[in-house]
């Protein structure tokens, strides 16, 4: 077959390796994919250079060609990264190309992992390249909840120690101003505020994660609490709740803040009670909060049941079975 590679003198020395899908020996491919001829040709040359473990310019441009046809090919990215480092290529140029590919394939995770592999190189990126934050905001303009992008941003924060970089919090607040229900942005804020900063274990996550001697109930709780910071975060959550009282994100953010500080839900009893009075409920999440406060307080079980019944009968009928589950647990506790 006459193809782009078979007619190119640069590739004349390479013998392509055809795809062996097993059918010649009687096997039947599950899910047969009709690959276009250009893809079949390019990948036959890819197998040949991979088999020779070739680190060359022509192999590098071949990987780009294959990726443009199938970005989900999982070894071509690893091979490409190896060549980039072996040939000491300009990684900023690679990042520029990746920006375009990322905007084209929004759901592909290999692209983001590749980016992470490049940025991991301390030799090339001893400090945080500030253009990264601009590009991520460009990605969030397409989809402000893109999971791969947030996961990558999380990694950047840990790798370059960006917790207190003003830009991180500014971007989170910009996104929350645009959409106060963006749970990804709320989560990022939580990580900035309470994520572990000990990088001696380079990628361990939650406080005490890898420590088997820590009781599971203690995991995630801060050992040193900055009470002013906690108060500031609780205030921030309150303001967001006032903007959209039925938005679940800030209510759960506040629960997480109190837990990290080792402070209980009862601390918000006064604030939350303002949302719930006879015949006037301002947020169903406030009703749930009060139910949880009363459930923990001896002698208040009946009040908790009253709150849960209100949710079940008036504000959240879809979760009737769940509220019944909660009511049953309280009944068992009392009995």
């Amino acid at each position: 077959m006459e193809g782009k590679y078979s007619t190119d003198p640069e590739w004349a020395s390479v013998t392509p390796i055809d795809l062996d899908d097993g059918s010649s020996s009687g096997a039947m491919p599950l899910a047969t994919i009709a690959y276009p001829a250009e893809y079949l040709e390019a990948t036959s040359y890819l197998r040949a250079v991979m088999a020779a473990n070739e680190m060359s310019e022509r192999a590098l441009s071949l990987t780009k060609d294959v990726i443009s046809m199938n970005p989900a090919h999982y070894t071509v990215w690893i091979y490409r990264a190896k060549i980039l480092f072996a040939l000491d290529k300009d990684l900023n140029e690679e990042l520029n190309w990746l920006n375009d590919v990322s905007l084209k394939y929004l759901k592909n995770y290999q692209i983001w992992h590749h980016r992470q592999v490049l940025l991991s190189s301390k030799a090339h990126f001893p400090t945080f390249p500030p253009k990264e934050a601009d590009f991520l905001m460009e990605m969030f303009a397409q989809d402000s909840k893109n999971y791969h992008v947030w996961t990558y941003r999380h990694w950047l924060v840990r790798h370059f120690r960006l917790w207190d970089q003003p830009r991180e919090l500014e971007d989170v607040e910009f996104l929350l101003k645009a959409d106060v229900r963006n749970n990804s942005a709320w989560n990022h804020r939580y990580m900035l505020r309470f994520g572990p900063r000990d990088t001696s274990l380079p990628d361990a996550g939650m406080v005490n994660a890898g420590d088997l001697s820590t009781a599971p109930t203690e995991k995630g709780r801060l050992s040193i609490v900055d009470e002013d910071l906690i108060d500031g975060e609780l205030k921030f959550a309150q303001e967001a709740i006032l903007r959209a009282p039925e938005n679940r994100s800030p209510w759960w953010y506040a629960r997480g803040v109190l837990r990290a500080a080792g402070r209980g839900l009862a601390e918000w009893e006064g604030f939350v009670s303002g949302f719930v009075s006879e015949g006037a409920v301002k947020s169903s999440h406030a009703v749930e909060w009060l139910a949880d406060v009363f459930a923990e307080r001896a002698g208040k079980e009946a009040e908790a049941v009253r709150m849960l019944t209100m949710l079940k009968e008036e504000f959240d009928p879809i979760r009737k079975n769940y509220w019944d589950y909660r009511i049953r647990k309280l009944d068992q506790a009392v009995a």
Partner: protein
Amino acid sequence: MLLGYLTLSGLDVLGVLQSKTTPEERQGYIDWLYHCQVPSGGFRGFPGTDFGPGKRNKDNEAWDPANVPATFFALVNLLILGDDLSRVKRRECLEWLPKVQRADGSFGELVGPEGSVGGPRDLRYCCCAAGIRYVLRGRSETGLEGVPDIDVLGFISFIEACQTYDGGMAESPFCESHSGHTYCAIGSLDFLRRTCNDLKPVPLLSAGSNQFEALITWLASRQTAQLEEPDEDEDEEQREVTDTGSIDNRVRGLPNVQPIGADTISCAGFNGRCNKYADTCYSFWNGATLMMLDQYSVVDEVRNRRYLLEKTQHLVGGFGKGPGDPPDLLHSYFGMVSLAFQGEVGLSPVDPTMGSSERTVRHLESLPWWQS
């Protein structure tokens, strides 16, 4: 490998695998799956990385690696087809598994150049790795003398660290809680407890613990009547906050939430994250997790069934992601399995952890080397 799984398992759950395929075809598929086995153990995702006989060596084997999800789905596919796994390089595969585990207990996707662990730090790989271990290690050590196990305690510790402040589980510690990853977290632990009798109780699996109850709350909260993006002007507005006056006064000034009549909501699907819209496949990811935790009863089954059958099922058959979306293989399979969990007539019972029929699991657990 995944497409093959969705097709084969789909036919199996419908109970028509034997009638819609011939014995020769099934044998051909089995041979193809073994064709994807890597000489050093484990399976590739597709034959496209194979250089052919005699060309594999230490320098190039990183470019034709065994892949963790592909290996798990290859094994499940073989079991669905009734194969006894006798051609699986069981010992080699189990020796490879610890090499894909990182020091923090998590799993990668493959072994890359110079023995590095490649791929993101992601609970999907953890779940598939635990599945491989469950299928190939079984309840017996016969034939596995000297084969090192994975670091089970480190593995559990990593999974526990993925629980977020709102009770769900994230891809890695401190990322956002997500139903797909939550399924993988609980699936990993469930695979472990199926074969390890001496496992210490894990709070995430223990009813009554804070971790368990927070997870149930989070899972139940995923069921939603928000099925698609509302028109711009219908969106509940974000109030402009006037931060004058006391907090109490400002709260008092908020509008009341109107009670919702139970008869006004006919359908409710599931989302995968807080404040997202429903999507067919999340009826599976959330529902299967609740099945593993033995709390499926918190689901509103009637509204979930109506959501699937009346909203995302397509006229030509199959399910799309959301209302009006064209059907695809993935959403068709997971929509159907969600109905199977609820006892829909005509569907075989499905094992939530394996994601395939209970028949498949019985077949595995009856294999002589698996039991003792």
